[in-house]
């Protein structure tokens, strides 16, 4: 199976940023796919499938993050994550 990679930049519009519940939503979304996904801020990088790492990032509202995926379903994983971010993680802001 071919290994693909993809990258996407997303702005966190959700208030008040990536707190506990959005972090869990990100991890649960990433775990639905086989690709490895990383989330990078201007300062740090974390494994998006690992809640301890994502929660340690402390991303505030308005921050820009880079999502990069590598694996057979990299594009699909990033599409799902982009939808999650644009949907403000299911919270109607």
């Amino acid at each position, binding site marked *: 199976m071919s290994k693909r990679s993809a990258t996407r930049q997303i702005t966190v519009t959700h208030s008040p940023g990536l707190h*506990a519940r959005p972090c*869990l939503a990100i991890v649960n979304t990433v775990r639905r796919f086989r690709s490895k996904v990383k989330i990078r801020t201007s300062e740090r990088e974390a494994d998006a499938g690992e*809640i*301890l790492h994502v929660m*340690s990032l*402390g991303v505030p509202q308005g921050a820009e993050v880079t999502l990069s995926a590598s694996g057979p379903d990299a594009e699909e994983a990033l599409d799902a994550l982009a939808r999650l971010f644009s949907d403000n993680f*299911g919270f109607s*802001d």
Partner: protein
Amino acid sequence: MLQQMELVDGKVAPNGDLTGNVHVYVNPDEQERRYLVETLKIDEHTLVSALDPDELARLEIEPEHVAIIYKRPRNYSSADEFAFRIASTGLFLFADKLVIVVSDDMPVFQGKPFAKISSLSDLVLRKIYGSIFHFVEHLKVINAVSESLEDQIAASMQNKYLLNLFSLEKSLVYYLNAINSNAKLIERLKHAAPKIGFSAENLEFIDDMLIENSQCYEQAEIYSNILASMMDARVSIVSNNLNWLMKTLTIITIAIMLPTLVVSIFSMNVPFPGRDHPLTFWLIIALAGVSVATVRIVWRRKGW
């Protein structure tokens, strides 16, 4: 900071022209506090309670308004190091408006519970229901973090992850206390329904809230018990990991020490038989090798 909002068409929307019937005070300053106490006749102690994270949930029925203090989870920040904290919120229900006092700037009407609101008293109940919902969601996060920490502990020799687990355990105790405190408040709301003016629909919703809150409490209790009962086992795992490392280091030390001893004996500056023989060097090397092999055989036979 004051945010003016208006309850229209079953939804709470921002209202900039200061005529809204929902007033949200985020960490009110001295002037706003004076207005709340002197003009709206909110009891000063109750107002302070609304901003105090350690205050218990309660209900006060005043002549011109109903004061409700309830507990909610505080939004997690990465600086909290996996300690989930509690905050209080004050709801002051007047005949024509609802005043909400919160200590931190966070979205006040966010998520599922705030759709199709029929009245201000309904909004009060939705706020408390929102807090139950928030607790349940945080319990899911705590469970996920706890599982992740367990995986880290299985391979770790550091106290860091254990300390994180202790923080989670402590958070759950605070959550249990807060959820229990909210349960007492909801019971009191039910009993004071005629005085507050809750409708039959509101009462039905209060019954649902009692059930949801009780389920939330049980869930938090289960997670708390699991964390507490397994803590000793986890401490032992970290200790055992350290023991294994020490054992490996000891094997390496002994394996190096014995050939060093053999070589050292033959390095003494005294004459010994066969010193000048051409094969003596290789004999010493062979003896050093045999000493390593002996350590290995004894180690395996003893099953160390």
